[in-house]
């Protein structure tokens, strides 16, 4: 059984720690189990069921460290892996950025584990996918989709007395429906901590309506348009921004967060006053572990408050160099929403474009965070407050920083992948060419 309880994990970690002779020692133990179904052409194409568990030891002598891992947990194996890490540490080059271990910490109990999600088995997966296929077949559409669930635990202990444990579950579902002629395509993607929220039938119906609604798209001229980005599209843009919230790169002058003449843009009004971005491990829709991989407590942190940059992430080393708090990086970001609905936004738009999602986004210029990519799976022209017709996909060249300065309205935020973002209405979004892709 690869999912251990807190007590079971602690017992193994304590046993391994007793073998350590290093100045510093950190031992981690983690395991996962889960499965997936992939389907296409209205039939299952591949499916899998995978589990694994492993224990890793990092030993340190001075600023030299070594790491070794094992997937056997008897006494002899534990002793062997600790010994191997120590041997490696003695041979390693010095790491001038090595930081001493943290002592004991207090973390609140996380809310990342859901028993119903953990209980998903191959039959439940097949049933959920069966419902999605039913929508496709009844609608004379072709479905390709993916359902994946996983349960995992992470734990670690160090020689300064720090112990941390977390158990989590997740389930994600996405599906693309296309019409028989290949002229229309629709998509939906959702991730949940609690499988009770997953309704593959209802979600597939949304993708079906996009597939039918996007058929027969007309070409309009590229240029600057007001866009209404559905949460998927909005998340595609803002997700590419968060790696830039790193203090060291900003201090070194090689980030969009770097200030002309030196230093960072912390404290600057870099975005529209409507923009507030934070992470919160205890958020019920997007919960996360209450500790980071190096043992720092993960707390609610505000990164952008009313458009002003409030925090940048620091490694413990860089924080020490700069004499500041070592705010850990956060991956599960939440952008605060507003009160509009997508229907309201459409109603308030004289001329604009509704975007379901973007695709193949890559950095063009890290200096300005300029991104390029394309619209996909449902792009619509809006005129005088109404959706007029589906349009051909566009390539865009736009920066999320520029985009978040051009915010007109925000809707209710929802979870998309590992972010929570609102739908948003943005003015002057730059489309540079047309694509024939459906």
């Amino acid at each position, binding site marked *: 059984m690869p999912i251990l309880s807190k007590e079971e994990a602690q017992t193994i970690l304590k046993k391994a720690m007793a073998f350590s002779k290093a100045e510093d020692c950190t031992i981690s133990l983690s395991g996962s189990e889960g499965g997936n179904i992939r389907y296409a052409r209205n039939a299952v194409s591949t499916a899998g069921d995978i589990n694994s568990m*492993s224990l890793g030891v990092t030993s340190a002598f001075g600023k030299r460290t070594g790491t070794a891992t094992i997937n056997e947990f008897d006494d002899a194996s534990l002793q062997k892996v600790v010994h191997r890490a120590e041997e490696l540490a003695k041979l390693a080059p010095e790491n001038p950025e090595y930081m001493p271990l943290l002592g004991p910490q207090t973390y609140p109990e996380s809310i990342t584990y859901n028993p119903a999600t953990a209980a998903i088995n191959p039959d439940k997966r097949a049933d959920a996918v069966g419902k999605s296929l039913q929508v496709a077949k009844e609608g004379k559409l072709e479905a*390709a989709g993916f359902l994946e669930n996983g349960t995992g635990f992470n734990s670690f202990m160090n020689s300064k007395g720090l112990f941390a444990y977390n158990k989590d579950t997740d389930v994600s579902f996405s599906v693309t429906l296309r019409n028989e002629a290949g002229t229309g395509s629709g998509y939906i993607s959702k991730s949940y901590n609690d499988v009770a929220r997953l309704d593959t039938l209802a979600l597939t119906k949304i993708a079906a309506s996009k597939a039918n609604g996007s058929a027969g798209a007309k070409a309009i001229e590229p240029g600057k348009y007001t866009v209404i980005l559905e949460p998927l599209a909005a998340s595609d843009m803002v997700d590419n921004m968060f790696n830039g919230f790193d203090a060291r790169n900003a201090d070194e002058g090689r980030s969009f967060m770097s200030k002309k003449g030196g230093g960072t843009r912390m404290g600057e009004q870099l975005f529209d006053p409507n923009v507030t971005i934070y992470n919160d491990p205890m958020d019920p829709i997007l919960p996360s572990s209450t500790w980071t991989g190096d043992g720092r407590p993960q707390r609610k942190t505000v990164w952008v408050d009313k458009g002003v940059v409030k925090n940048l992430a620091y490694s413990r080393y860089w924080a020490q160099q700069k004499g500041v708090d070592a705010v850990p990086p956060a991956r599960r970001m939440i952008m605060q929403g507003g009160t509009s609905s997508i229907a309201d936004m459409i109603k308030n738009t004289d001329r604009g474009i509704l975007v379901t999602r973007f695709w193949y986004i890559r950095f063009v210029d890290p200096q300005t965070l300029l991104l390029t990519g394309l619209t996909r799976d449902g792009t619509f022209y809006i005129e005088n407050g109404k959706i007029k017709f589906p349009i051909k996909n566009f390539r865009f060249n736009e920066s999320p920083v520029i985009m978040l300065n051009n915010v007109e309205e925000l809707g209710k935020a929802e979870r998309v992948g590992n972010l929570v973002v609102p739908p948003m209405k943005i003015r002057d979004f730059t489309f540079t060419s047309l694509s024939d*892709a459906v």
Partner: protein
Amino acid sequence: MKRKDFLQLSAMSLGGLLLPKFALLGNPIDPLQALQDGMDVSTKKLLSDVALNTAKAKGASYADVRIGRYLNQFVATREDRVQGVANTESFGVGIRVLANGCWGFAASDNVTKDNIAKVAERAVAVAKANAKIQGEAVQLAPLKGFGEVSWKAPIEKNSFEVPVKDKVDLLLSANSVAMANGANFVNSLIFAVQEQKYFASTDGSYIDQDIHRIYPTFTVTKVDKATGKFDTRNSFSSPMGMGYEYLTPLANEKVTGVVTRYKNRYDMLEDIKTATSDVTEKIKAKTVEPGKYDLVLDPSHLWLTIHESVGHPTELDRVLGYEANYAGTSFLTLDKWKSKNFNFGSKLVNIVADKTQTGSLGAVGWDDEGVKCKEWDLIKDGVLVNYQSIRDQAHIIGLKESHGCCYSQSWSDVQFQRMPNVSLQPGKEKRSVDDMIKNVEKGIYIMGNGSFSIDQQRYNFQFGGQTFYEIKNGKIAGMLRDVAYQANTQEFWNSLTDVADKSDYRLGGSFNDGKGQPPQSSAVSHGSSTARFNGVNVINTARKI
């Protein structure tokens, strides 16, 4: 690891090096442990038979088993310090079965007789559960077993036998060249991979293979504090299906010209000096005037355009809709292929697929479902003539056999259709790059790969590069910046008017090409000589925030 993550890692443009991500590739180990022999072949055969027999006894009509040991080594440095040395190993077994006409797959890192039987049973259970919702039954192209065979990459020096200290010394020497020549920052990395994989199937094949790959790379950064500008130039190395011999420079493997580029041997110390002077010039270069230009594309750049606009749309799984929910489908639909006259490009466009080129990332003896590897035409004299296929797709387009394009990144992932090497054939007549440039009135000469993006059916693309040289009336007229070109695949390949001869032919490649759900990474090479494309739309990418 997703290709995007890897690129972020290797480009080091944001966030620095994220060493914990390496853990995704396997468990950390002692470098010496990588040199120890893994499980012997006779034990693998014995365990494979347990899997195959159990699967059949539980009702499978076909089964294959892959016992794999995947070794990775990373040595990462910045300026005068080592950031991380990681050795990882991943060992386990993956079993794929056909039962009731449906695929099932299960995998485990516990490679013992008892557990393998359980894993085979789980794979059959997965297949039977899914058969309830399955449409048409899976059909495999017929294949005769090869018996007990083996294949070994023809390397000269196993990267894992080279001490970590030698790699650290090379990288730190390279970094010091960059810093001494005025770089503000430099990150460098050597990434080595070995796949020791054993495949057995109920067709009667027992195939033992040993594959090596290496990727040395760096990024030199220049910062102008006063203006707040920064720019980078990445290495002109290529990931290769080679051992450490790739890092021993050889004069006859160099291509000279505006700057030196490299074939099957790389000179890191020379390239990093050039890169530092390139980035110093690039940060001050003239910003490009948008408009139509004739592009002269170096193989260090063109490989990625071939990969995205020819490699991906000729994947049969995309054409058929298997990737519709993720990577997308393809504009090269079956009717275009059946017509036998679909004009993909100009007459000069001859594009070959292979899994056999020595030193390439795709080279292997047999694919991951036991099909012997070969070479075939995709585009002949500008016309689409074939696709890339695997066993369960071949019958759909009336083929009698698979092209041998099945691959899995690990024992723990199910194998599926992946791109072979896809390469543009050099010009048949003698033709130098200098002669090509002489004829260009208004053009841009592009080296190295930069930003890349293409739509889900592979029509519309946009590419950047590492360095851009303006061509004015047949002469190089200095560097440009903020350059990206946008085109439609078919129009672009029809604008190909000139290709250098085979003396200029080089391989570029992707170490981490992503596809599939859950996403899997594969490595693939793309060869070409320098080529000219007329009248391509160039945009200016400079913005202010």
